[in-house]
């Protein structure tokens, strides 16, 4: 009887530990910050969330007169894209697609955002294409990329809005 109780209590203890680990993993997954990364030559280092929105809505299309913005956005299902749709665009996937079709055919923009399929690809392109801006998981931003402060905060700092 004692043995059974001990086994039962150990099982319960183990289950609790597993639950704790899962909760920690889930909590960590949800608190991962998404960094706004630009090409190193881009003349911005601090943008408000409203400015980031303006850029990604295609309302601001030039960093300077000779340096157009090149939007890079992750393909559907990526967490970075979900964060962008939820916080920046405040749109569903359908609304986002409809928004860009309408934007282009209102003659407000000639090109839609370029689609990137991984954080590696986003890292490669944002450091290579002048004027490029992308959202990358903050843990995967490579040295050499320029991370922009959003509302005065860098990823990982309290008050950072993109998480």
């Amino acid at each position, binding site marked *: 009887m004692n043995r059974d109780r001990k086994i039962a209590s150990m099982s319960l203890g183990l289950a609790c530990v597993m639950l704790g680990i899962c909760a920690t993993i889930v909590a960590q997954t949800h608190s991962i910050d998404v960094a706004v990364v630009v090409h*190193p*030559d881009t003349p911005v280092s601090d943008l408000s969330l409203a400015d980031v929105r303006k850029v990604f809505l295609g309302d601001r299309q*030039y960093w300077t007169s000779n340096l157009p913005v090149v939007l890079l956005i992750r393909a559907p299902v990526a967490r970075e894209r979900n964060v962008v749709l939820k916080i920046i665009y405040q749109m*569903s996937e*359908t609304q986002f697609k409809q928004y860009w079709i309408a934007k282009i*055919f209102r003659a407000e923009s000639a*090109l839609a955002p*370029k689609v990137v399929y991984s954080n590696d690809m986003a890292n490669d392109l944002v450091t290579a294409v002048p004027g490029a801006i992308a959202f990358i998981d903050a843990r995967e931003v490579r040295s*050499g990329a320029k991370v922009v402060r959003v509302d005065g905060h860098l990823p990982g700092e309290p008050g950072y809005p993109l998480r």
Partner: protein
Amino acid sequence: MCFRLSSMFLFLLLADLAFTQEPPSSPPNQPSVKELLERIDRLEKRVNELEANEHKPIAIRAASAAQRPAAPMQSQQPDTASALSAHEQMPSSELQQVETHYPSLQIHGFGDVDFSATDHKGSNSGFNMGQFVLHFASALSGKVSYFGEVSFTAEPTTYELAVERSIVRYDYNDYFKLSFGKYHTPIGYWNATFHHGAWLQTTISRPEMVKFGGSLIPVHFVGAQAEGNIPSGGLGLGYNVGLGNGRGSLFSKAGDSGDVNSNRAWVANVYARPSRLYGLQVGGSFYGDKLSTTPGTKFNEWISAADVIWSKEHPEVLAEYANVHHRDLATSQTFNTTSYYVQVAYRLPWEASKWKPYYRFEYIHRPGVEPVWDFSTTPSVVDLVGSLVGVRYDITNFAAFKGEYRRARSAVNEPNVNGAFFQTAFTF
């Protein structure tokens, strides 16, 4: 019995957890959970280090690029192919992904099929083909782009082909973009936002005040236009200013083949999109022109318009007002036609947000005698009070069904006409 046994087992477990004297401890030779987590952290750190080493060449290149003296701006023109040529180690598939070739033509088509049935005397119910529309957008270089729109409209014996928009635009920067061609006149919101292609708009039809083929507002404009943002911080101001031919000999058309007089029409539109209220747009527009209904008659036309828009879909609110003022230059008589509409829609959250019910009220009041509208035997602008209620169902991201009930009267003392309308609209 089974329930009692289960309850007892659960009770024993809880009691054991609460009162056990000997907390289960890990055998000394087995690592604890804390130690395992620390080990995972160390391994993650190691993986990151290895990955960093693997990517070092790219990082070094980027760092050296950052240290380079700023290249002349011309070299940063968005000829992405040349910009990328320095990065030989980047996979070619990634290069192709972002490379823009000029011209980069994109074509989208729009179509719709409609069904209507009304109690208007003499009207027939039945299906009809909506406009078949092709949109073209092409970047000609980093700063020059072209936009075109052609429509095919079903007529009793043929399809009428029309160039609805044809615009070549030069972007100097965000504050100044200059274009030439044929536009949808930037008066108010709807006319400059929803073009041909019923899929783009929530409802089946456009409001009467901006309907295609209507005369109240000159829907098209041939000429030149400057547009851009106005530096205004969080206020988000923007503008459009245009100079063009104005109305053609048929008031509902623009003077594509040339102006009917030597006077240019002008249009100015200013709007605000405050950053603190994302989704809100407030705008005002003015339009001026000179018209001649018959040789020897001259009218000044002055249109003032305002709009308040909440473009998010929870809810979506569109409200526009326009006043068209005509002044007979011979008699100094003035005529004002007032119009507005309010449209409210709400994208329902369930079923993947596919349902969007909507309601619109619209109103046009014109003088009993208006020499410009009554120039031909059939008045080109009606005195309208109407409303509609309907629902849009997005079958996919690119196709929708819409169903609408409308009730409107289109002249003073005329009876209301009721009708049911259905549409499937799509883009391809």
